[in-house]
């Protein structure tokens, strides 16, 4: 959660604003947009509703602020220090377990955004241009690895990028399916480790794979 230190927030105003935002992040990530009640956010943040409206406006604007934080959070992690990395290096730098389980709050926000808003071709995506720009990093890393012959023929840079994101985010979005298939909870580090190792084994070329036909 972003506001780790209250010392960095000198005045009471910005500290209650941050508190509202951090409660809102948690509530929206648990319940999504539609089912979240702003009264409850104000109550949990220990402020009155008027103050919350004063800072953020109506629910939709509060949600905007939450999504903005989400985009800010994911951006450096998706870009992982630039697109000049080799594929193996990029893969390891973005490994989901590299940031620990508090990441699941943001992954669930991302899943809620997808589930609730859908994405018909004309549906608006918040901060779309900025986010498309971020995804250029994995896309160009994979494209370069394909061009260098590091990845097997037939790998599609977009397909590969989507697979990396899906396997990182979906345990948090579909924890029941995770348990039905693996018997483990999505927040079990053992599950994360095994999934990540399997994806690494499949995606990162280390030794030639021997497959009989």
């Amino acid at each position, binding site marked *: 959660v972003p506001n780790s230190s209250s010392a960095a927030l000198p005045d009471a105003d910005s500290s209650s604003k941050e508190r509202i935002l951090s409660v809102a992040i948690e509530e929206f990530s648990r319940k999504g947009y539609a089912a979240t009640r702003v009264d409850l956010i104000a109550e949990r943040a220990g402020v009155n509703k008027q103050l919350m409206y004063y800072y953020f406006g109506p629910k939709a604007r509060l949600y905007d602020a939450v999504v903005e934080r989400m985009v800010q959070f994911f951006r450096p992690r998706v870009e992982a220090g630039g697109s000049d990395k080799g594929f193996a290096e990029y893969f390891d730098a973005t490994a989901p377990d590299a940031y620990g389980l508090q990441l699941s709050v943001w992954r669930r926000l991302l899943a809620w955004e997808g589930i609730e808003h859908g994405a018909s071709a004309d549906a608006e995506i918040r901060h779309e241009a900025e986010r498309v720009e971020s995804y250029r990093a994995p896309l160009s890393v994979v494209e370069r690895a394909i061009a260098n012959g590091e990845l097997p023929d037939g790998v599609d840079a977009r397909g590969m990028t989507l697979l990396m994101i899906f396997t990182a985010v979906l345990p948090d979005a579909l924890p029941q399916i995770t348990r039905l298939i693996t018997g483990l909870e999505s927040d079990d580090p053992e599950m994360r480790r095994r999934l990540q190792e*399997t994806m690494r084994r499949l995606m990162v070329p280390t030794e030639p794979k021997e497959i009989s036909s």
Partner: protein
Amino acid sequence: LSDDVTADAADSTWERILEAAVEEFAQNGLAAVRVDAVARAAGVNKQLIYYYFKSKIGLREAVLERMVREYRPFWDVVANSNLPHLLSGLPDNSPNDRWRRLLAWEGVEYADDSIREIVLEQTRSQAYGTQTEVLRREQEAGSLPSDIDAQMLSLALVFARMGPFILPQVTRMIMGQDATIADTRTAIGATLEALLGSPREDGSPLE
């Protein structure tokens, strides 16, 4: 005769309520649904819903049971499948988008539920288990490396199929505005095939 007629009428009312409930639950999630809204959509009174389904929980279970039943033909196809078909040849894994939405709702709500109960857990884990079994069979046949964790690969394959529906916004930002769902499936399927080795020569079409 009149008993039969009454029973038929009751059946069709029950079906109408369930149908309305599936729609409502797919739209608004399993927790946020209001029984009033289901009653209104089905054109019945609320008491009748409680009479048939006991409670909102009962209604939710009936909806998930229906989902499991409708997925059954899909799992039958999986059971008779092989690796190449699992990677890119499977039929669309859901007869209807609303089931994917239901799964998504169930997932996000499960994570927020301290009891962490899964409706029809055993039946459903057996269904997913058929896919894992196919992978293990391929490992025994030597067409899939034996050091790959079959359970985790099975999970990744489900995520590969569900991903475009759970994260349509991310899919669009990566695939581009004009990409269709078929384009996305092709990009992911081709990548999986390449990563897991070319499909075997004898991979004959299923249908």
